[in-house]
């Protein structure tokens, strides 16, 4: 049966095609000139260039972190190209009609139609390919509500005060090796601003796509929710199948001011590499949010892609009564490795956090949950509940849990639960005896295991996530 389960986890990566779009790609290598080039290409103001250069100088003095439970060959940062843009974007299209049809077709193929009338009802999309944002839909409707949703490059030009005020306020330039790199060379990403008291009228979504070879993708997302506002945001990611590894190092910063709420959901499906472990994306991401008084940030992530994932969406619970939540499903298959989890930093009084992390390992993959719950001395009445469940498919994979708890306040209540289970032969047999084939049985059992997390996703995406798991598991039973 184990063998059967394992062969079910072998299936093709559906998003693995490459679109031939003529691109302007910078020659590989990284030095100050490259940083200046990117900034100039984006026609950035001086303050932005200075900010990048500061990050670049910090990065040069930093070392790549090695503490994560992942193994990969050294990355040659000089062999990567740090900027690539579709040629047709050189003279920025003003509307969808001016966008290269090849690009639109590519997104169509990925199931993300960018024509508003065909798009998912009620979801505005910012599509980013390689280093630039291609198009943002529903802008007019959002502007009516006062919501700003645009490429960050555009925000730098149009809303310099907002960007200057908040960029790097949650993840400083020298926060860590990859964040510093991102700060120096980030090329695009999304900017969201929700004014005071506004409930964003639709889901916002950014769709990232790496297309060119040997390019790194470094996007930067900044979401600011003013007092009493609400926004739900979703990001999706895919890349073509390639034999060589590609680097993705993003930074996401969330600012939830008093009484605001941000729901941030990720369905990450970067190319995971082939069955032998060749190729795939290295996904090194820094995501962090800050909650002011009574604010709430929820991170929900479904991670099925990438060869190596290193990612810890975190919450700084600064304001009293603020709430941080982390719901995660991380699935690894074949030779994938994931080291993911969260950090909940309790600073304000009566702050509370919930962590539900589900790890699924199949094939010869390894997944690790790494979580930090820190209760500062002033955080009286803080609470945390953590639940980590691991599900193993087959017997050549591994799951590891590294919970760190630091409490400096004796009134804090911290609960931690952890379980490890297997897809049992008896469960498989029950399903099959009722007429389900092995693939359907595994995906059903795995979906059941993830239920608590999926219910946190926006409806349309919960269905997508379920399907994605099914595809990612294909071949794990035969």
């Amino acid at each position, binding site marked *: 049966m184990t063998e059967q389960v394992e062969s079910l986890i072998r299936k093709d990566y559906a998003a693995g095609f490459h679109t031939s779009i003529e691109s302007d790609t910078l020659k590989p290598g990284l030095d100050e000139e490259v940083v200046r080039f990117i900034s100039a290409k984006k026609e950035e103001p001086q303050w932005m260039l200075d900010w990048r250069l500061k990050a670049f100088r910090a990065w040069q003095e930093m070392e790549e972190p090695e503490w994560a439970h992942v193994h990969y060959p050294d990355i040659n940062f000089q062999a990567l190209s740090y900027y690539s843009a579709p040629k047709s974007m050189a003279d920025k299209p003003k509307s969808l009609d001016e966008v290269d049809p090849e690009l639109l077709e590519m997104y169509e193929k990925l199931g993300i139609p960018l024509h508003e009338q065909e798009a998912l009802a009620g979801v505005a999309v910012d599509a980013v390919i390689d280093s630039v944002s291609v198009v943002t839909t529903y802008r007019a409707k959002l502007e009516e509500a006062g919501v700003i949703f645009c490429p960050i490059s555009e925000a730098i030009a149009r809303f310099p005060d907002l960007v200057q005020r908040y960029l790097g306020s949650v993840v400083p330039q020298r926060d860590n090796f990859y964040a510093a790199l991102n700060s120096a060379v980030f090329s695009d990403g999304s900017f969201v601003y929700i004014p005071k008291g506004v409930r964003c009228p639709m889901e916002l979504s950014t769709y990232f796509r790496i297309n060119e070879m040997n390019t790194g993708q470094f996007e930067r997302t900044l979401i600011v929710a003013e007092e009493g506002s609400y926004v739900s945001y979703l990001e999706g990611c895919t890349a073509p199948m390639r034999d060589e590894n590609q680097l993705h190092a993003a930074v996401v910063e969330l600012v939830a001011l008093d009484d605001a709420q941000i729901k941030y959901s990720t369905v990450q499906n970067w190319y995971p590499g082939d069955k032998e472990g060749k190729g795939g994306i290295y996904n090194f991401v820094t995501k962090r949010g800050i909650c002011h008084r009574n604010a709430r940030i929820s991170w929900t992530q479904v991670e099925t892609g990438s060869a190596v994932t290193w990612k810890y969406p975190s919450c700084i619970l600064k304001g009293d009564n603020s709430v941080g939540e982390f719901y995660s499903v991380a699935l690894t298959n074949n030779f994938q490795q994931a080291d993911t989890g969260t950090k909940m930093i309790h600073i304000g009084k009566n702050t509370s956090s919930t962590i539900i992390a589900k790890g699924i390992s199949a094939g010869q993959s390894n997944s690790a949950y790494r979580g930090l719950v820190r209760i500062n001395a002033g955080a009286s009445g803080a609470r945390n509940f953590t639940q980590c469940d691991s599900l193993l498919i087959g017997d050549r994979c591994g799951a590891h849990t590294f919970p760190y708890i630091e409490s400096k306040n004796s009134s804090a209540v911290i609960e931690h639960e952890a379980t490890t289970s297997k897809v049992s032969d008896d469960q498989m047999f029950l399903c099959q005896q009722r007429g389900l084939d092995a693939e359907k049985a595994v995906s*059903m059992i795995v979906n059941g295991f993830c239920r608590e997390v999926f219910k946190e996703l926006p409806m349309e995406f919960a269905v997508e996530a379920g399907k994605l798991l099914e595809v990612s598991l294909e071949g794990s039973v035969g």
Partner: protein
Amino acid sequence: MLDIRNLNARVEETEILRNLSLSIKPGEVHAIMGPNGAGKSTLGNVLSGRPGYEVTSGSVEFNGKDLLDMEIEERARAGLFLAFQYPVEIPGVSNMEFLKAAVDARRKHLDLPELSSFDFMKIARETSKRVSLDAAFLKRGVNEGFSGGEKKRNEIMQMMLLEPNLCILDETDSGLDIDALQVVAEGVNAMRDGKRSFIVVTHYQRLLDFIVPDHVHVLAAGRIVKSGGKELALELEAKGYGWLEDEVA
């Protein structure tokens, strides 16, 4: 319906079923009794194709097809149903979703159109009522946190929804209170339509008062050592199995 000829089967290295032959006609109810460890559950497992049970010789024909040549799910879709002695839990998978997937698979095999979620929900609710399970059980995870008796009733509900041709009930009566026993028996009796056949494995004559069998077999040490009519069950209740083992020896 089912024709088992000289079946030998083993688990790991141990021979469990030895030269077992049994023939079941459409509409018949066969009761199988016998001491613990005789091989009753093994028979159900072998017929349904459970991994780990290896047939070393013999044949089984199911509605004219070579049953042993079919995959587990093909056997199920073709109408072979096993009600488990110990039903397992599948956390997080709602009973409703599970039942729908099972019924969809069966209907597809029969070339029937898929039921809409709405229609299925209606049928599922009615069926749960028939086995005295509150409709809330449909939303809970498959067998998740169900009591022993609730699990057994859930098995019967699945049987009713799937409308199999051959139902193998492995000690569905054990652990049931008297009311639940009646529920199960009524369920089975309602499904006796002259075409559908049953293999009822039990240790207790009591069940056979409610589900009256056409044949009773005693399975001991992997073979059928005695067959008779429904009165054999009464005799076993009075005398136990000892006398049979002597007879065989």
